[in-house]
C-alpha cells in the first residue's frame, strides 16, 4: 500500500479517537457535536484513502453521501440544542437528565 494511504489511515484513526474523546469528555453539547463531526470526517478520510488504494470511486461516493448525512445531522442536532437552550437558558448536558429509570 502506498505510504500516503497508510499514513492517512493512521491519521484517520487518531482523529476518530480524538473525536470520541471530545464527545465523551466535554459537557457542552455543541462541542460534542463538533466531536461527532470530527469522527465523521475521520471516517471520510479513511474511505477516500481506500478509494485511492483500490482505484475505485466507491469510497469517494460514500464520503460524499456522508457529508450530506452529516449536514442533516447537524441541522437536527442544533435545532434540539436551540430548543433546550430556549427552555433552560444554560446548556449543560448533565443537567438534562430527567429521562432516567
Amino acid at each position, binding site marked *: 500500500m*502506498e505510504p*500516503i494511504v497508510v499514513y*492517512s489511515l493512521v491519521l484517520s484513526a487518531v482523529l476518530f*479517537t480524538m473525536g470520541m474523546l471530545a464527545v*465523551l*469528555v466535554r459537557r457542552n453539547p455543541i462541542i460534542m457535536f463538533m466531536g461527532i*463531526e470530527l469522527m465523521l470526517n475521520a471516517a471520510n478520510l479513511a474511505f477516500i*484513502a481506500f478509494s485511492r488504494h483500490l482505484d475505485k470511486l466507491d469510497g469517494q461516493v460514500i464520503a460524499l453521501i456522508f457529508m450530506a448525512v452529516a449536514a442533516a445531522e447537524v441541522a437536527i442536532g442544533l435545532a434540539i440544542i*436551540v430548543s433546550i437552550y430556549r427552555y433552560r437558558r444554560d446548556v449543560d448536558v448533565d443537567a438534562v437528565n430527567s429521562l432516567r429509570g
Partner: protein
Amino acid sequence: MNVIELIVFIAAAALALIGAAGMVMSRNPVHSALFLIANFFALAVIFLLLSAPVLAALQVLVYTGAIMVLFLFIIFFFIQPGQKHAYVYSLPWQTFFSGILVIVLISVLVLGLYMGGVFTAEEHVQSAAMKVEELTSPQALGSALFSRYLLPFELTSLLLLAAMLGAVVLARKEKRDDREEKN
C-alpha cells in the same frame, strides 16, 4: 510518493492534529469551532493528496462553509461569549472511563491496521497516469453518482428534506399558547 508530497502531508497531518486537540481542549466554544475549521482545511489538503479533488472542494464548501458557519452562528446567537462553564466534571468517573475507552479504541484501530498487513504490503504499481486523473475527475464522479449510485443519491436528498423539516419544526418560536402551557 515523492518528497514534496510527504512534506505537504506531514504539515497537513500536523495541522489536523492540532486542530482536533484544540477543539477538544479549548474552553471557549468559539475557539474550538475555529480549531475545527483549521482541521477541516488540513483534511481538504490530504484529500487532494489522495487524488480526490472533488471531495476536497466539497469538504471546504460543505463542511467548513456550511456546517461550521452554522455552528458559529448558533454559538454567537445563543451562548453569551466568555461564559466559562466550570471545569467541574459532574461525572467523576466519566473522564476516567472515557480515557480508558479511547486508549482501547486507538490500540484496536492501529492493531487492526497492523494485522491487516497495511504496513508491510509492497508498493502498488501505479497504472497509467492518465487513468488516475480521469478516474477521479468530476465527470467520472458525476456519472457514477447518476448511474450505479442513483438510489443512495435520491435517498440522501430525501434525508436532507426530512432534516430540514425537522430543524424548522424543532427550532421555531412557540406561539403564545405554547408558552402559557409551558410555564
